[in-house]
């Protein structure tokens, strides 16, 4: 049978999704898929484009590899653009001169950034923000700049501004309208958003109409209609999008009056053989500049081609949530009162920087829309209520009031109808998920993910998916498995208890008696960490169980080299010891940097160099800093009463004492501590796992704080206690955490899940409510008494040293590790810089 040629023009997010869906649905193999892409990379995740600034590579963002297309027999032409369509003879021609015949065409040409036609816009230093190439250009140019202006204060503009700021540029946002995100938030919301953005260090300029761009060859500034001027060295334009309809126009396919390839609800253009989907489309006067509607369109066309002629597209929801780090903004439905009578409920708290507004129907039964700024945690629930036209609770205000954790919210996942969308990227409903659990034997989140594809797009729905799964399990009376992995039915806490109770101290015994199979990357390091917490044996006596970091007593870096961090308790170091570090850095040509924990990081050490480096450090009196382990990292300190004119206690001495006490302590995740000499808190103790702040009368102990991804202020566990009590409390607190936490659970997260929360913890630590404190203290004392520096003992053991070699049959070094220099120090070569050979 002759297959029909489907030519997909544009391999962006939507074009790719179309290929994937058609391939999966086309079980009769009726179609040959051919796709052309103007860009030099196959489709990548444009939605997460800004992640490129956080170090994601083009490969990380890629939707599928080139092999993916090959394996599916999909012809992919990269860097080749379709330049004409001959609709009479049914052929397309590409810029590289390829002419192919087609049965159907699917246009997925996306859109291009709108560049306002102001004089000077073509100067060097003006950029758009759409493709990976754009971002690479921006990054390269930004190296020479200190300032940047982003034109456009919409969704993308703010994302671009944040990125510019992360590149170290002083960033201004310029918006034509009188508020930020004019299409998504109302005036008051825009005002709050402006404050939040400015609090992050950017400047917001509203009501600004650009007159011209100033500068000779390159940009030096911008001039506005009100004659004001902003000086800047670069400009990023994010002033809206224009659908790419030039190809449609050129071949006589009808386009909308304001641009866009015009389609009907079957997504057919004026030519029956040509479909259009995604951002290039105009349907019902609307351009859908979001990815989810594009995916729905792709689905509808796939359905039609594979026999379901009834499948149509009749519009899609344009609710959005801004994914700016540190700023929550979301909106859905109507944001301002429309024709029908309605009421609004507003919560505006300038103090906490939160603004929330709900628009509800006159009778108070239906949610018509809403705006959330500063805290969008309820977005998922509200969106569901809105989309499914659900009955509102008697007091809708309860939906947006700040909640304490125990209080039940008005509406839970169980109340949602089966038609409720859980994952909008993949168009998966609550009913689909329940069906996967009930009828398709999906018995875990990952099984549901791979069966329904929910949560595999932007991932934003995973928390809701998890809630739904747990809700369903609880309803069916099934206990959700806390099993560590396929080899152990035990949770980490249970494994810890088994090890303590039985004294089993080898993985072979543990898995033989309490598990099955041979283990994996999850249970092996967990067991190793538990053995270390309980018995405190040398970490390398369990080498086969360790993550690479513990196996080589150093933290592995992205290029396979390691970092070396000697311990510097409390951050106190003599000039002589500093010179030792400096000499090592110089002799081994390592990249040297001060860490946030008041010590010094030496990066770029090859495996075979580690013993020599540590030999020098240990001989000079350093000890391992355990920077590689899930263990105590540092106890940071300020200079305290010894030097500081405000200090009330000697914070440095205490920090040193604590760091030496707990160094090497293995735990479910890393632990950080700090001691400040007075309430001015220069050591930032309240964002640490344990933090101590000096008072006139003694010490205040704070626990379970965190910086990192999800900052959390520590809770005050005890005040004005003396040093012995303080150490006793920390001993108990840490051991209780080690005993009960899940693997890779930091204390902050552990606390949030701890039944009874802070009150419970206080009762355990202070009142010994579980009557286990003598035991916990004894365990801690055992760890303290048996401390040995892991590097010192490794250097004394030729057997252990054997593994510090790249090749066991040659003294050669790994030639794929290559460096270049930035600011006089080494850094790894990126792949793009070294023309990698295949193996």
């Amino acid at each position: 049978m002759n297959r029909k040629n489907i030519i997909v023009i544009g391999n962006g997010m939507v074009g790719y999704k179309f290929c994937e869906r058609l391939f999966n649905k086309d079980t009769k193999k009726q179609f040959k898929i051919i796709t052309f892409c103007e860009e030099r990379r196959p489709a990548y995740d444009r939605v997460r484009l800004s992640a490129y600034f956080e170090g994601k590579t083009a490969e990380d963002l890629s939707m599928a590899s080139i092999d993916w297309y090959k394996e599916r027999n999909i012809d992919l032409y990269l860097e080749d653009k379709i330049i004409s369509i001959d609709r009479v003879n049914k052929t397309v021609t590409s810029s590289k001169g390829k002419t192919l015949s087609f049965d159907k065409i699917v246009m997925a040409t996306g859109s291009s950034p709108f560049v306002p036609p102001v004089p000077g816009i073509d100067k060097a230093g003006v950029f758009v923000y759409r493709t990976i190439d754009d971002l690479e250009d921006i990054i390269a140019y930004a190296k020479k700049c200190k300032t940047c202006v982003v034109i456009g204060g919409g969704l993308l503009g703010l994302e671009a501004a944040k990125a510019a700021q992360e590149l170290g540029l002083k960033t201004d946002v310029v918006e034509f309208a009188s508020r930020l995100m004019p299409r998504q938030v109302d005036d008051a919301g825009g005002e709050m958003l402006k404050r939040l953005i400015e609090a992050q260090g950017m400047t917001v300029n509203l009501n600004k109409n650009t007159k011209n761009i100033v500068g000779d060859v390159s940009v030096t500034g911008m001039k506005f209609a009100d004659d004001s001027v902003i000086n800047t060295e670069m400009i990023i334009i994010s002033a809206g999008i224009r659908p790419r309809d030039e190809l449609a126009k050129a071949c006589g396919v009808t386009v909308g009056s304001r641009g866009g390839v015009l389609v009907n609800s079957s997504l057919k253009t004026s030519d029956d053989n040509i479909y259009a989907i995604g951002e290039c489309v105009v349907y019902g006067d609307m351009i859908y500049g979001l990815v989810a509607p594009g995916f729905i369109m792709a689905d509808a066309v796939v359905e039609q081609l594979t026999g379901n002629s009834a499948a149509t597209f009749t519009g899609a929801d344009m609710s959005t949530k801004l994914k700016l780090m540190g700023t929550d903004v979301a909106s859905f439905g109507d944001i301002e009162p429309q024709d029908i009578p309605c009421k609004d409920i507003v919560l505006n708290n300038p103090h906490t920087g939160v603004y929330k507004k709900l628009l509800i129907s006159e009778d108070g039964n239906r949610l018509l829309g809403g705006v959330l700024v500063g805290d969008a945690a309820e977005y998922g629930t509200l969106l569901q209520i809105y989309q499914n036209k659900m009955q509102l609770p008697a007091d809708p205000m309860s939906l947006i009031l700040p909640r304490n954790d125990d209080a039940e919210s008005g509406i839970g996942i169980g109340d949602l109808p089966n038609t409720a969308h859980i994952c909008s990227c993949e168009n998966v409903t609550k009913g689909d998920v329940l069906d996967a659990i009930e009828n398709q034997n999906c018995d875990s989140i990952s099984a549901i993910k791979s069966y329904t594809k929910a949560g595999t797009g932007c991932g934003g729905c995973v928390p809701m998916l998890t809630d739904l799964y747990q809700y369903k399990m609880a309803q069916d009376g099934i206990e959700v498995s806390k099993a560590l992995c396929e080899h152990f039915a035990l949770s980490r806490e249970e494994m810890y208890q088994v090890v303590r109770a039985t004294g089993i101290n080898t993985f072979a015994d543990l898995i033989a008696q309490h598990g099955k199979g041979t283990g994996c990357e999850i249970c092996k390091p967990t067991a190793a960490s538990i053995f270390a917490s309980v018995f405190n044996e040398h970490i390398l006596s369990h080498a086969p169980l360790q993550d690479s970091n513990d196996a080589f007593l150093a933290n592995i870096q992205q290029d396979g080299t390691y970092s070396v961090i000697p311990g510097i308790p409390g951050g106190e170091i003599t000039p002589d010891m500093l010179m030792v570090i400096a000499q090592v850095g110089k002799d081994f040509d390592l990249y040297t940097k001060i860490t946030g924990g008041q010590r010094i990081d030496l990066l770029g050490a090859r495996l075979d160099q580690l013993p020599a480096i540590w030999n020098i450090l240990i001989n000079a009196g350093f000890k391992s800093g355990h920077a590689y382990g899930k263990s105590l990292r540092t106890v940071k300190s300020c200079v305290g009463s010894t030097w500081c004119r405000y200090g009330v206690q000697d914070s440095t001495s205490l920090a040193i004492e604590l760091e030496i006490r707990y160094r090497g302590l293995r735990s479910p995740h890393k632990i950080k501590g700090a001691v400040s000499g007075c309430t001015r808190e220069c050591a930032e103790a309240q964002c640490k796992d344990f933090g101590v702040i000096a008072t006139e009368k003694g010490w205040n102990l704070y626990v379970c704080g965190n910086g990192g991804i999800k900052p959390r202020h520590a809770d005050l566990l005890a005040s004005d206690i003396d040093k012995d009590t303080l150490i006793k409390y920390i001993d108990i607190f840490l051991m209780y955490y080690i005993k009960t936490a899940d693997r890779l659970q930091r204390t902050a997260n552990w606390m949030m899940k701890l039944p009874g929360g802070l009150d419970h913890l206080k009762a355990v630590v202070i009142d010994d409510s579980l009557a286990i404190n003598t035991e916990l203290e004894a365990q801690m004392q055992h760890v303290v008494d048996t401390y040995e520096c892991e590097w010192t003992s490794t250097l004394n053991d030729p057997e252990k040293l054997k593994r510090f070699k790249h090749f066991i049959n040659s003294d050669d070094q790994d030639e794929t590790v290559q460096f270049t220099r930035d600011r006089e120090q080494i850094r790894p070569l990126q792949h793009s810089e070294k023309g990698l050979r295949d193996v």
Partner: protein
Amino acid sequence: MNKEWINVGAVVNFAKDLGSCVKVNGLQIAVFNLPKNNQWYAVQNLCPHDKRMVLSRGIIGDKEGEPKVTCPLHKNSFSLKNGKHVSEGDVDDITTYPVKVKDGDVFLEVSV
């Protein structure tokens, strides 16, 4: 292309339950010694995910009974038997090499 068995060293050089990296005709190959059932496996040392020479430093385990190695960098897992990528996501498979032990030495079969 011709294939040949190449001696990569004595059995005792290969740590038990761990991976070791050997250099054979310019190739980096990760060799795994699993003494429990007297099993040996060899795969490319390059992790295809971020193209780093690190697989010999990964943790060994099994997925539903199938032996696997997990990359130390981002935890992608690969079958030691056939090189298939067996964890979540879309990452390429890896090459495996036949291994045999003869007279106390380990041999790999590679193209020459």
